[in-house]
């Protein structure tokens, strides 16, 4: 491990308040423009796809089928305040409005009046593809298949077994060991079936050389994210806001396998490195480094900077950049096998203990954090193991139980007050 970079003198300029990373702004803008191209292509009669975040997107990229990711589209629907109306449409159709909303919301959005649809609305997809994770994702996607013009394809989601230690060291090359050959065989076979299914319906033919290139671009993107993450880990005071790395990383993730996404990841790195060279800091008086474990608190992004003034406490870590750095790398000659390896356990890496807890500990140690705020998600098991593992390393943890997207529950949980108290007493 390299020594933390510490500026020689406290001459460090502070990143001017409100000055966001150019990469974050560019990524967000691009995503909006790109969505309109998807709408145009659909309007011109091209088939488009709706796919879940943990489905093998690269297949669609290689077949040149534009795809929109369910969870990303839900976040746009929610941000445009169209979430409740979308859920009402589901309820009007007799479907539950309380169940796995981030998977289900786009279904309701389809039936909103044209003027209420965010960004003009998602054109009716020709294909809806998801993994059968949890108990209801398959049924939500089955509903898509009941709509005129849409067909559904479902992949299996097997349980995380085995779970060898230190997955992040194994997954890039030794994925057979990381995930087990049988799980990989199953998903690889199903991806082959998916390819055949799409070929049959589009009249296109998979170019496996192209798929291999797309896999390589995805790896290149992850390598840039890795450099960015490593640089931030060892730089004190921290050069960028977690609020900024989130969009700067997530938008390109949905464009994975394109040169644009590689360039976006690269410019995030270069912009970060430039700030490090210029010794720009989010908070030059940084005294405490904090880690945010769990989903982003989208309803209150200001929270991440609120503890700088009073405590010199800065959030230096969120999972979005870190998982983009460690979660996607898969090197190998057989692109379909590598693709199966990329997705067979993509969510397990983050959410299944002991993989989750081992990884958070690793990240906490490499980033030299002084304390962790753990937003406990109740849609994952064993979150207590994460807290326990961090505390066992001598890192104090504040557990907060709240729903990330729900403003009411975050204020009800008195999050800012509790973080302040936590910093005062334990960090």
């Amino acid at each position, binding site marked *: 491990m390299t020594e933390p970079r510490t500026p020689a003198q406290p001459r460090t300029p502070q990143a001017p308040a409100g000055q966001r990373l150019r990469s974050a702004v560019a990524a967000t803008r691009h995503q909006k423009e790109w969505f309109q191209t998807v709408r145009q292509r659909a309007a011109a009669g091209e088939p488009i796809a709706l796919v879940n975040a943990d489905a093998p997107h690269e297949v669609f990229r290689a077949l040149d089928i534009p795809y929109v990711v369910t969870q990303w589209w839900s976040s746009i629907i929610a941000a445009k305040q169209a979430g409740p109306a979308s859920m009402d449409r589901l309820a009007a159709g007799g479907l539950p409005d309380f169940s796995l909303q981030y998977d289900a919301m786009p279904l309701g959005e389809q039936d909103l009046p044209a003027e209420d649809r965010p960004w003009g609305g998602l054109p009716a997809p020709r294909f809806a593809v998801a993994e059968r994770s949890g108990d209801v994702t398959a049924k939500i996607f089955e509903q898509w298949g009941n709509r005129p013009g849409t067909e559904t394809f479902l992949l*299996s989601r097997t349980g995380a077994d085995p779970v060898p230690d230190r997955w992040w060291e194994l997954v890039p090359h030794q994925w057979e060991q990381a995930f087990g050959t049988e799980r990989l065989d199953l998903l690889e076979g199903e991806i082959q079936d998916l390819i055949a299914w799409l070929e049959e319906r589009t009249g296109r033919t998979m170019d496996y050389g192209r798929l291999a290139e797309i896999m390589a671009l995805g790896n290149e993107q992850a390598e840039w994210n890795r450099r960015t993450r490593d640089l931030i880990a060892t730089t004190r005071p921290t050069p960028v806001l977690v609020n900024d790395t989130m969009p700067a990383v997530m938008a390109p993730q949905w464009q994975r396998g394109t040169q644009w996404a590689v360039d976006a990841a690269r410019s995030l790195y270069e912009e970060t490195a430039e700030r490090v060279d210029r010794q720009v800091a989010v908070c030059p008086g940084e005294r405490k480094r904090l880690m945010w474990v769990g989903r982003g608190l989208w309803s209150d992004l200001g929270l991440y900077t609120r503890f700088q003034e009073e405590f010199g406490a800065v959030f230096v870590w969120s999972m979005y950049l870190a998982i983009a750095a460690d979660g996607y790398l898969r090197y190998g000659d057989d692109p379909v096998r590598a693709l199966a390896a990329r997705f067979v356990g993509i969510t397990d890496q983050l959410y299944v203990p002991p993989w989750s807890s081992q990884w958070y500990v690793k990240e906490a140690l490499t980033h030299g954090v002084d304390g962790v705020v753990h937003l406990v998600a109740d849609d994952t098991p064993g*979150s207590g193991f994460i807290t326990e593992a961090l505390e066992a390393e001598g890192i104090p943890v504040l557990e907060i139980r709240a729903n990330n997207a729900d403003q009411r529950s975050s204020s009800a949980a008195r999050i800012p007050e509790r973080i302040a108290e936590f910093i005062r007493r334990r960090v």
Partner: protein
Amino acid sequence: MRIGVVGADVPRQVVLACGAVPVRILGSWTGAVSQEATELLGAADAVAARVLDEILSGDHDELAGLVVCNDSMADLRVYYVLRILDERGRVPFPVHLLDAPRGGGAHRRRFVSHQYERLAAFVSGVTGQQVDATSLAEAAAREAKLGQALEAVQGRRRERVLSGTTALTAYRAAAQLSPEDAWERIGELVRSAAEPVELDEPAELAGARVPVYLTGSSHPDATVYAALEAAGAVVVGEDHDAGDAAWIGDAVNAATLEEACAQLADRHTARPPAAARSLSSERTEHLLAETERCGAAGVVALVRDLDDGPVWDLAEYRPALASRDLWLAEQLRVPAGGVQDATAGIIRALQRNVNRKDAL
């Protein structure tokens, strides 16, 4: 030797052939859920939390091993948590995941078949007994005999001599005792079934008993059945895995473990569709066939909070049942302590439906 089972996907013949008795841990409708179980599992079906509580409080310490099925999100979480606690010595037996995805097809069948082989390796590791042609044949005979006893239960049920409560008790015996003990217990239940079921308030629904079919969440015990039947209904069938959809009594003829596993993986694809793992269209088709087979007048859907699989089926159930002139009484998101209220709500709906039918 007894091997505990959480979930409904275990091919019992394999476990029996390895020299163990599979013992299903079902949990219950009532009883406190500990804070520890809630925190360990996150937001999950209360019945799974009660199962975890039972295991952690030592109720099943006599087991030689535990198999947890990936047959619902809640059960998979139970596995993830127990895997870690087992490593720490919190449970006195080894824990094994059985992952048998639904949906059929060659790839899944091969995966499931391998999973059954791994299951055999796990159980053999516990019992010290390897599977061979003889043990497979013996296990098949024992399981088939149990299957015949359960068929007798279904027959008596169809004749309306056996209550749903008794049938559920028979299934429970089959899931938890050795095949021989279960066979005997079920025989007693069938023989004693000529006795009429007790009625609480005969006034409301007296005369003909209303034949109802149960869908929704699984029933770990007969709490709801007993209450419905005391109010004048008779539960003539169900699609959950502690009742008619339990995988008990099925066995294959095979000379080797690999052959047996491959055949059983085939059988797995033919099982009744599960709320947490199958599509609504498959579930609806099954529901319509079963309500007809059982001669049900209507359907009761009781769904526990956080057990969301069944609620997605209802949008398809409603018009399908209406087209067959079958009513549907729903209670959704039943909270951990809410089974009594939910059942009372069902009974009120039942009475309304019956009266409406009479008025026609």
